């Protein structure tokens, strides 16, 4: 373990802004991408239910 | 092929306004830079080759869309697809005709603008030569963009968006030739690289353009 305390870890030797700014953006982009794909798939499920109801009637 | 070439030249001569507009654009854009940056002679001399190359690039892109759009609209392009002559050769004929009425003229005009920027006679020579060598490449690559974007909304803008990244090497070697000469580094490298790209583009770009035409007409 490279760190002696949590605050050291967050401080990143003074570079905290840059390091966490990078990691945060990567995380944000990935989470957004996955979330967007999930919601598109859910929308497709919902749309298919509507057409199914139409057919079964 | 020759017939197509002659026909295209005739069509452009009939509608000279497009050509003049592109040339005027070249002059205006080049003149904008000193207006935007400041007229210090030393600064202008430094940026001259880059600015003039970019202005030439942009005005070349401006006229690119019309290479196939009229033929596409009136059905001539379909006829070209069906003709006995291989489509890439027909494309090459159109590219030559188009270049004579755009890039070629821009290269001829460049010494005048070089004067505006206070370029030395030697640099002006090199700039004009680099444009003569480089603008055919622009037209060849632009043809691919023109064919890909046929019939599409805002064709001109999309075409530029697609092709400008691809012509960055031409810009780098073309504009760089002047700077290299000024720095005493010799021209051979830049011009050989430009020549190499031209030799690559001459057979390959018409092939890609022909494929793009077929895709647009299916």
């Amino acid at each position, binding site marked *: 373990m490279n760190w002696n305390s949590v605050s050291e870890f967050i401080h990143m030797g003074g570079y905290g802004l840059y390091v966490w700014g*990078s990691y945060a953006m990567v995380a944000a982009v*990935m989470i957004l991408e996955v979330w967007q794909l999930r919601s598109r798939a859910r929308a497709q499920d919902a749309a298919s239910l509507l057409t199914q109801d139409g057919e079964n009637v | 092929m020759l017939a197509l070439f002659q026909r295209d030249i005739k069509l452009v001569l009939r509608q000279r306004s497009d050509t003049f507009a592109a040339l005027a654009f070249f002059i205006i854009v080049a003149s904008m830079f000193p207006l935007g940056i400041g007229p210090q002679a030393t600064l202008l001399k430094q940026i001259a080759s880059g600015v003039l190359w970019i202005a030439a690039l942009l005005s070349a892109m401006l006229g690119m869309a019309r290479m196939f759009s009229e033929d596409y609209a009136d059905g001539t392009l379909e006829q070209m697809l069906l003709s006995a002559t291989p489509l890439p050769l027909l494309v090459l004929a159109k590219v030559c005709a188009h270049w004579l009425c755009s890039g070629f003229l821009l290269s001829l005009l460049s010494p005048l603008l070089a004067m505006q920027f206070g370029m030395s006679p030697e640099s002006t020579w090199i700039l004009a030569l680099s444009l003569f060598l480089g603008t055919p490449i622009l037209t060849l690559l632009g043809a691919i963009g023109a064919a890909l974007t046929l019939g599409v909304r805002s064709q001109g803008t999309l075409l530029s968006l697609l092709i400008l990244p691809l012509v960055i090497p031409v810009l780098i070697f073309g504009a760089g030739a002047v700077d290299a000469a000024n720095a005493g580094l010799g021209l051979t490298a830049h011009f050989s690289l430009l020549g190499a790209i031209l030799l690559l583009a001459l057979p390959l770009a018409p092939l890609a353009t022909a494929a793009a035409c077929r895709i647009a007409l299916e």
Partner: protein
Amino acid sequence: MNWFKYAAPQRFYPLAGILVTWCSVLATLLAIVGLTIGLLIAPTDFQQGESYRIIFIHVPASWMSMVIFVAMAFWSAIGLAFNARLAFMLARALAPTGALMCFLALWTGALWGKPTWGAWWVWDARLTSELILLFLYIGYLALHSTIQDTRRADRAAGLLALVGVVNVPIIYFSVKWWNTLHQGASVSVSAAPRMASIMLIGMLIMAIAFWLYAIATALARTRILIREREAQSAWIDSLEEQT
């Protein structure tokens, strides 16, 4: 029912589903390992201090941006050569992920450059080429979305991807040339710190994690595209009746 015509997307759809799950799980596990190494275990760099830790995400992102572009071109070539719908769908599905990787490479590159070389943007060969690659991705997506007919959009954008992939080495070479001419002893973001092997291992693990992530998202997007495009076919109906 002409099943042969729909065979490729139909058979592919459930396979893709399985792959998405597996790749996601593996990616997550590897990322946890990689991040532990990169953020917790690897020592401080002698020259760059803690800011070097950005390489654990910068390098994988830029590698992926390039790998995905090549994959896009590859699937476009398959699509054009064999007239295969599914190949075009794969290419189209890869593009947004690749573009995002490009953006991340540029963002992390800037945040790494600022503490290291004092500027948010340095015109070094790698970063500049990454920027141009982003333009190529945007061009592909713009062309695809502007053309209304899906088939023509697939093929035109596919051709563009091929033209692009051929050009990328030329562009990179010319930018490198330009960079050395104008900066002399160039400040290079790509000059990685002399890495202890633990750092290298961490970076490679993260690279694989990014790669698996990219596969998972691209396949998930392909499934969405399949459902969108194959909406008329019977197997979609029976699939949806099951859900």
